[in-house]
C-alpha cells in the first residue's frame, strides 16, 4: 500500500524544511554548537547567530529585534501569550475576548483560564468565518484585559480584519494578541501598523524547521513567564537556546517574506484552478471560508453525503495528503468546531476536505487531483445511504 507519488496538499499542517534552510542550520549542529549564553568567543559566535535570526524575524513582521522571543512552536507561543497576559494583568480584570474559531492552542488555554477564575467571550463568526467588529466592540467591558483573535484560520483560511481589531483594542487600551501561525509567510504583516501587541508564529508552517517558533511581545507589555529557569531570552524564556532551530527560523522567515506577493500569486493561481475545477466537476459541494479574504493556498470544501476520513483514506491510496474537519479522523466526537461555527450542519461538516497548497505543489498535482477526486467522491456517494435517500427523493 505504498504510494508511488506524493501529492502533498497539507501545507497548512506542516511543511518540509527548505534545503537552503537546512543548509544554514547544519554548521550549528556539529561545528558551531557553543552555548549562546556563555562567555567564551566560541559561544559568542552562537549568540551572534541567534541575534541575526532575531533581526530576521523582527523584520518580517515589522517589529524591533528586542521584541522577539524564541519559543518551541505555535502552541507554546499561544500558551505563553494568553496565560502570561492573563496572570500579569489579573489585578486589572478577568475578561478575555476571543473567537469560536481559534486553534485549540488558544481555545484550550481559554478553557483552562475559565477554570481558573477568568471569563471568556467567544465571538461568533459569519458563514464566511469573519467576526463582526461591532460584536467585538460590544463584548468589551471594564474587565477586558486581552483580545486574542487569530490572523488567519487554519481550517477554512479566512483572514480576519486584524488592523481594524488592533485599532479597536488600542483605542480601548486593551492588549491585542494574534495567533499568526497560519498567516506568516502568506500575508503581509506589520505589527506597528496593525497595532498588534503580541503575535505567535511557528517555523514549520513556512518551510522552517519544526520545534521552533517565536512570540513577539511589544516593548513595555507586562507578561508573566511560562517557562521559568535560566536567564535566556532576556530572562523571559528559560532553556538552552535551540541554536540550529533559531538560525533556521530566521532564514526561513526571511525567504518566506522576501517575495511574498509573487509567491502567493503563483500559489493562488493554482489554488483557484483546483477550486474551480472541483466546484465544476463535483456537484453538491460547498466552499467553506471566505471567497476572497482567505489564505492563498487554502481550499476547504464540503462534499454532501460522504464522510471525510474515508475520503482521506482513498486519497491517501493515490498518494494525496490532505486533511478533514470530520471528527472521525481524530477519534474525537464532534466535527471541527470551526465548521460548526460557520453554521455547517454536522453531517455536512463531516464531509469536509481541506487541501492546502504550497511550495511543493505543481500544476501536475492539480491535474491529478482534478482527475481522481471526482471519482473518489462519486464512489463514496454510491456507498452512502444518505445519497441514496437524496437521489430517491429527487426521483419522486
Amino acid at each position, binding site marked *: *500500500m505504498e504510494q508511488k507519488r506524493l501529492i502533498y496538499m497539507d501545507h497548512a499542517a506542516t511543511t518540509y524544511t527548505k534545503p537552503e534552510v537546512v543548509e544554514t542550520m547544519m554548521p550549528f549542529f556539529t561545528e558551531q554548537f557553543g552555548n549562546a549564553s556563555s562567555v567564551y568567543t566560541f559561544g559568542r559566535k552562537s549568540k551572534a547567530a541567534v541575534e541575526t535570526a532575531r533581526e530576521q524575524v523582527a523584520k518580517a513582521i515589522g517589529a524591533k529585534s528586542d521584541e522577539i522571543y524564541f519559543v518551541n512552536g505555535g502552541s507554546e507561543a499561544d500558551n505563553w501569550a494568553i496565560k502570561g497576559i492573563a496572570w500579569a494583568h489579573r489585578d486589572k480584570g478577568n475578561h478575555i475576548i476571543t473567537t469560536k474559531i481559534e486553534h485549540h492552542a488558544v481555545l484550550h488555554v481559554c478553557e483552562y483560564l475559565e477554570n481558573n477564575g477568568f471569563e471568556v467571550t467567544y465571538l461568533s463568526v459569519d458563514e464566511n468565518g469573519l467576526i463582526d467588529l461591532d460584536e467585538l466592540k460590544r463584548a468589551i467591558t471594564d474587565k477586558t484585559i486581552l483580545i486574542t483573535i487569530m490572523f488567519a484560520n487554519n481550517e477554512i483560511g479566512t483572514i480576519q480584519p486584524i488592523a481594524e481589531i488592533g485599532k479597536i483594542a488600542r483605542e480601548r487600551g486593551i492588549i491585542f494578541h494574534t495567533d499568526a501561525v497560519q498567516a506568516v509567510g502568506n500575508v503581509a504583516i506589520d505589527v506597528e501598523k496593525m497595532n498588534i501587541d503580541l503575535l505567535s508564529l511557528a517555523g514549520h508552517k513556512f518551510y522552517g524547521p519544526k520545534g521552533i517558533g517565536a512570540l513577539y511581545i511589544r516593548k513595555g507589555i507586562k507578561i508573566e513567564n511560562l517557562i521559568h529557569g535560566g536567564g535566556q531570552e532576556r530572562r523571559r524564556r528559560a532553556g538552552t537556546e535551540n541554536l540550529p532551530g533559531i538560525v533556521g527560523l530566521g532564514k526561513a522567515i526571511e525567504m518566506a517574506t522576501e517575495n511574498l506577493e509573487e509567491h502567493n500569486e503563483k500559489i493562488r493561481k493554482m489554488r483557484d484552478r483546483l477550486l474551480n475545477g472541483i466546484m465544476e466537476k463535483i456537484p453538491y459541494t460547498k466552499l467553506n471560508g471566505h471567497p476572497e479574504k482567505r489564505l492563498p493556498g487554502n481550499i476547504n470544501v464540503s462534499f454532501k453525503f460522504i464522510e471525510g476520513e474515508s475520503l482521506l483514506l482513498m486519497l491517501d491510496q493515490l498518494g494525496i495528503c490532505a486533511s478533514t474537519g470530520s471528527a*472521525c479522523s481524530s477519534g474525537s*466526537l464532534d466535527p471541527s468546531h470551526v465548521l460548526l461555527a460557520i453554521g455547517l450542519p454536522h453531517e455536512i461538516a463531516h464531509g469536509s476536505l481541506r487541501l492546502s497548497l504550497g511550495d511543493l505543489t505543481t500544476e501536475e498535482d492539480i491535474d491529478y487531483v482534478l482527475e481522481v477526486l471526482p471519482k473518489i467522491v462519486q464512489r463514496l456517494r454510491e456507498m*452512502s445511504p444518505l445519497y441514496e435517500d437524496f437521489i430517491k427523493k429527487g426521483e419522486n
Partner: protein
Amino acid sequence: MYSDKVMDHFMNPRNVGEIVDANGVGEVGNAKCGDIMKIYLEVEDNIIKDVKFKTFGCGAAIASSSMATELIKGKTLEEAWNLTNKAVAEALDGLPPVKMHCSVLAEGAIHKAINDYRIRMGLEPWEDNITDLDDHHHHNNE
C-alpha cells in the same frame, strides 16, 4: 492506523449496494455523528441468501460493514443474530480503540434488519440489548 484487512475491505468493500426487493432492512447511526449504516437482507427459508449495505462513515465503518455482511451471508438468522461486534473486529485483524463503535454499528444494523424481517413475517422481534445506536456519541455542543 488500520490493519491491512481493514484497508482491503475499505478499498474493495464486499456487498456494497442496495437490494431493491429486500425483505429485511436495518439502518442505524446518525448523520450528526458521521456514520450511518444500512443493511439489506434477502432472507429465504431462514437463510440469508443475499445481503448488501450502504454506509456513510469512516474507513472503519465501511470495512466493518463489508466484513459483517461477508460473515452473515449464507448463514441462518440465528447465526447472523449471534455475530458480535468483537467477531467483526477480530475478523478485520482488529480496530483502533476509538473505532470499535463501528463494529458495534454493524452488529446493530444486522439486528435491526433481522427484526425488520421478523416483523414483516409477523414474528416477535428478538430482544436487542444494543441500545442507543443512533446516538452512540455524546455531543458537547447540543
